[in-house]
């Protein structure tokens, strides 16, 4: 099947969603996604950040789709023409979505451990407006310790349901879910029951914001002061391929490796994540791949990297990725 996104033609398999087709092309036209996660079945369709405009439905029915569609949920059809960043309507809609996502977000980035690798931060920086028009009180919750390793800040949650799906699909027992409805919904375990599954730590990695954070790394450092290295070990339960975050000769935290869309490549077990905090546990492969636009590369000195001066100086002009 042939589709066109922002004037770029691509050949895709039947049943591919627009988002995945755009990711196949790559570049600026890839819609951002906060809730869709390619490794989790049924994810997507909740955050609406991936909205695109379909100007031609298909070869058989060339009428445009009446509204913007969520690209993570809409399958491609033969001859479909899609506008992503080239449509001012889409850009405006994304701004609106970011504003909605930030309505109840506390914006406590200086405190939050996710700052620097937070998808919501990137999203609002690249696609959002500088100001919010929201004047009412934000909803607030108390922090919850889910077990001794995970901290849940419900204030920061954007209800993407990724963690719920992960718990449902990766593990045999479902231990947490979303309670209540509408703007009262919150992620919770049954009466704060601890999640003690061997793969439960992956909810930290799939969380796009700082709602679920690692308690063993809590306030230890900022992500841009620790050095990410790819490392592996022989693990009986998981693949053992991870990113370790070094500070001097100390492993501050261990996470799964993430691709350029911030998605985990292979899920890792809790033993690798929480218990192997010594460099001698790991075989180090080399420095992790980090976009040089990321704040994390601000403190990493590598040889042979030339830093280009920004073309324009000012907020909002920094190109993504």
């Amino acid at each position, binding site marked *: 099947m042939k589709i066109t996104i922002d004037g770029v033609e691509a050949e895709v398999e039947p049943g591919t969603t627009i988002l995945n087709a755009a990711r196949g092309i790559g570049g600026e036209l890839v819609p951002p996604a906060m809730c869709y996660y390619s490794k989790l079945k049924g994810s997507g369709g909740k955050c609406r950040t991936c909205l695109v405009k379909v100007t031609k439905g298909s070869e058989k029915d060339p009428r445009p789709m009446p509204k913007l569609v969520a690209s993570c949920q809409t399958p491609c059809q033969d001859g479909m023409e899609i506008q992503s960043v080239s449509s001012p309507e889409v850009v405006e809609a994304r701004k609106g979505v970011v504003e909605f996502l930030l309505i109840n977000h506390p914006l406590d*980035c*200086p*405190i939050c451990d996710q700052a620097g690798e937070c998808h919501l931060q990137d999203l609002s920086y690249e696609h959002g407006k500088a100001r919010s028009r929201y004047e009412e009180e934000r909803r607030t919750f108390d922090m919850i310790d889910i077990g001794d390793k995970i901290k849940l800040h419900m204030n920061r949650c954007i209800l993407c349901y990724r963690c719920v799906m992960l718990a449902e699909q990766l593990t045999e027992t479902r231990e947490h879910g979303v309670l209540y409805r509408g703007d009262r919904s919150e992620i919770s375990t049954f009466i704060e029951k601890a999640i003690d599954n061997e793969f439960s730590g992956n909810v930290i990695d799939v969380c796009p914001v700082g709602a679920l954070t690692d308690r063993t790394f809590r306030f230890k450092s900022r992500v841009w002061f620790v050095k990410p290295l790819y490392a592996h070990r022989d693990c009986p339960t998981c693949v053992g391929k991870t990113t370790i975050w070094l500070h001097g000769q100390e492993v501050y935290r261990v996470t799964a490796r993430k691709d350029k869309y911030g998605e985990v490549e292979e899920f890792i077990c809790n033993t690798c994540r929480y218990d192997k905090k010594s460099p001698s546990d790991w075989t180090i492969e080399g420095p992790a791949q980090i976009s040089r636009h990321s704040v994390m590369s601000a403190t990493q000195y590598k040889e042979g990297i030339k830093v280009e001066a920004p073309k324009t100086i000012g907020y909002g002009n920094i190109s993504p990725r």
Partner: protein
Amino acid sequence: MEKLTNRSRVVVKKEMTFLESIYLPAIFGGMWITLKHFFKRKTTIQYPEEKRPFSFVYRGLHILKRDEQGRENCTACGLCAVACPAEAITIVAAERKKGEEHLYREEKYASTYEINMLRCIFCGLCEEACPKDAVYLTEELVPSQYNRQDFIFGKDKLVQPLGTSAHPKTYKPYKK
């Protein structure tokens, strides 16, 4: 030899006139210039007793501000340290415990906040980067020390003392 520039002058040794040869007019001419300076405005000041006002944008010693309720503003976000071109700032964060709400404004605070004053170039980028209105550069100069170790200023020297509420620009921690 050809001249490289036309700025050089050829020295001529000519005979002095009578007035020139007694030197007195030149001496009195010089004395006259000296005398005139007695009645001119002085360009120097008597430094320790007298001090020039600093410019309002002068950047001197740092302070870590407290808010109106005396709580430390700094939340150890690390933006000053990453903005610092001289890498003079070191921060260690800690979590606020129950009962410390009157000491720290946010749930995280800096348990160690050190600025190496020998490294610091007083560019003020930390002040600009701070999202919590915590770090300011005052008009105070960094006092001289005998040891290098003494130039590493910790929280004991940087945090604004309790009870003071002066504007950060006019705040003088070392003034007697």
